[in-house]
């Protein structure tokens, strides 16, 4: 099969890294792949992952059209970041294909896209969510309010998936909206990921070295990674306060760093903020740690690369019992309820501190399960299967779209389009 894959390729993109793994697996399975880099113009100049195949930029229209004419299917790796996915948004409507959806909320990407497409954006908001959302969507005072106000009512996934021939996503919890909005198949496939730093991991890892349990959070440090709650949980336990070092590795804005440092200092919690590091240093940090914290609230992603990475490295991992994390087997991670976050976190961390053996056993179970589940080979095979299924369904999708378009030209109201009799007559094409 010949696949044209639109994806961020820049090294800082986790989706780019995943796409790269899948591309190598596809090529190994005998398929042809052309990569269309989807980042915004400035990022296109930056170094990319090594895809080992032809790569073209999304904004070179002639090259993209020529490549599209030669391909069997277009594939779009889509996450909630316009800077990384501008090319996907730009081409999806023109060249429909299979969307690999990494987040069940793409409101930030939509917001950024809307700045140059306000009329279309308002029309999309009105179509999917109604007039009230149109009035409020662009008026939230800050990001936290924006997420809180839109994550349930207007996650905008429908905007993307309604344009797709088929959808692959990586956990089940957000799929009902996708099934309603995408006319083609919707498949759940575990994210492809690996543990690239395994070979550089500290060979002399020692649990609770110097009597201290190392706790680690990685990735871009923001509110939804629950760092403040972790600090408070540690502070609430004399045992943890005395024996836990909590480290943050990943980009963090200065205000957040200041706030968290002040909180930790005030509560006498041992917090280390390392900031951004290279891949080797990150692998060492993971290798050294005893426990990974992958808490999230709200959880909007279809899968978490850092949680998968933690499991692939065989680390005991603490997650919030929600979304993607809730679908991980119970014996592979420690699940914390958001409603009683600090208390549950405290007792869980105390138990993990006191039982290095049980901790290691859970990490090993997680490693084995994650290694067999988050496989690039499996992802590549399922991507090809979904592409074939989407192509087969395409005539039916086009037929249904034709009838809906005719009804709309005739001024059909939403009520009429959703009437049982109308849906019944279109069901013959399902």
């Amino acid at each position, binding site marked *: 099969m010949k696949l044209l894959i639109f994806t961020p390729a820049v090294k800082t993109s986790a989706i780019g890294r995943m796409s790269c793994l899948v591309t190598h697996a596809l090529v190994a399975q005998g398929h042809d792949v052309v990569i269309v880099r989807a980042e915004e113009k400035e990022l296109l100049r930056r170094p990319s992952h090594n895809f080992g195949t032809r790569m073209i930029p999304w904004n070179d229209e002639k090259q993209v059209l020529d490549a599209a004419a030669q391909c069997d299917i277009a594939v779009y790796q889509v996450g909630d970041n316009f800077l990384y996915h501008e090319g996907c948004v730009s081409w999806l409507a023109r060249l429909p294909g299979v969307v690999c959806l990494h987040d069940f909320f793409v409101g930030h990407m939509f917001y950024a896209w809307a700045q140059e497409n306000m009329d279309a954006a308002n029309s999309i908001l009105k179509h999917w969510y109604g007039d009230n959302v149109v009035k409020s969507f662009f008026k939230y005072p800050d990001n936290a309010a924006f997420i809180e106000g839109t994550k349930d009512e207007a996650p905008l996934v429908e905007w993307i998936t309604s344009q797709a021939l088929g959808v692959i996503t990586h956990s089940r919890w957000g799929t009902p909206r996708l099934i309603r909005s995408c006319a083609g198949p919707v498949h759940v496939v575990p994210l492809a990921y690996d543990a690239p730093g395994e070979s550089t991991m500290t060979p002399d890892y020692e649990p609770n070295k110097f009597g201290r349990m190392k706790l680690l959070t990685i990735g871009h440090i923001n509110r939804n990674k629950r760092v403040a709650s972790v600090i408070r949980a540690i502070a609430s336990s004399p045992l943890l306060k005395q024996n836990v070092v909590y480290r943050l590795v990943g980009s963090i804005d200065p205000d957040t760093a200041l706030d968290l440092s002040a909180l930790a200092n005030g509560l006498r919690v041992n917090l280390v903020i390392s900031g951004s590091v290279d891949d080797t240093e990150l692998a060492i940090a993971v290798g050294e740690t005893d426990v990974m914290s992958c808490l999230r609230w709200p959880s909007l992603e279809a899968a978490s690369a850092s949680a998968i990475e933690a499991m692939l490295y065989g680390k005991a991992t603490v997650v919030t019992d929600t979304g993607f994390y809730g679908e991980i087997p119970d014996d592979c991670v420690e699940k914390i309820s958001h409603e009683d976050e600090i208390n549950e976190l405290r007792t869980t961390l105390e138990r993990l501190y006191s039982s290095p053996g049980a901790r290691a056993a859970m990490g090993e179970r997680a490693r084995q399960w994650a290694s067999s589940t988050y496989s690039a080979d499996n992802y590549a095979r399922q991507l090809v299967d979904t592409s074939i299924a989407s192509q087969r369904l395409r005539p039916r999708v086009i037929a249904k779209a034709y*009838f809906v378009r005719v*009804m709309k*030209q*005739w001024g059909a109201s939403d*009520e*009429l389009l959703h*009437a049982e*009799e109308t849906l019944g007559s279109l069901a013959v094409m399902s």
Partner: protein
Amino acid sequence: MWGGAEELSVNLQKNLIIAGHDSEVLRIPFQWEPASRISSQMLMVRALELWNVDKVIALKFPAFYIRHPDKTLWLLHQYRQAYDLYDAGQTNLPPGQEGDDLRALITNADNEAFAESKRIFTNSEVTRRRLKKYNDFDATVLLPPINDPELFAGGQFGDYIFAGGRVNGMKRQHLLLEALAHTSSNVRLIIAGPPDSPADGNQLREAVERLGLGDRVKLDLRFLPRETYAEYLINAAAVAYLPFDEDSLGYVAMEAATAGKALITTSDSGGILGLVKHRETGWVAKPAAASLADVMNAVFVDQALTRSYGRSARDLWNSFEITWPKTVESLLQ
């Protein structure tokens, strides 16, 4: 269903073939009830493609939604429940928003179909006016010719008034019976044709019984052979046809005029008024038993006058020059 439109389509096909063309009739199923299924039936027709024919002549809703680059409409029926019958409170569309949505859908779809048609003809002035009023499209009236004019020659001036065609409430044969009860005892009436439902037939039988008209009325309520129907018509003294606000002249009236029979109708009967000129080609009564009784009496009071009305009706009809060769020529322009 087999009615005037179906009959017309078969005769149009026949006359297209006579004119040297290949022609087929494509009948498209359509059911009014339930109204909620109307939109899906409209869609079905819109999806039909007839790219292997040179020309499409579409006659009625929703058949005129068929796409074709050379489509001519000979409009016999719009979906009147969305237009004038809606205004008259005689619609089958549901009340409230749902009905409003359906009505808007039908109007928009009709407008789209009309706009893409090469030419639009209507079967009557009433249909033309309705099209202009509700959809703002102009059309040319192209009255349908009668199909077997040879059957309507000869005959006598008989001793009865004939009311032929389908029997139902809208055709108001019962009103003729009510009127007959008010006429002189020498006035007789033959009502002949298929009832739309058993109840329609029973209503007439019950009226004859109730009004004591058994010796002055013949009810022949069935689908008649054409020859039998023509026999009734050409031997009548006059022909009565009083539908409620019908679009077209009506085959019964056109055939009666061909046969040179004086015509009786009512002032609210619609298209037929194009052929019935009061005291010229017949009589236009008020739609009430007493008024109708007066004109039914008049048929037999001065037979010479009645015959002259019949001749005038034939002359008027002939002046329309409505023949199949001319009709085919117009439709293929």
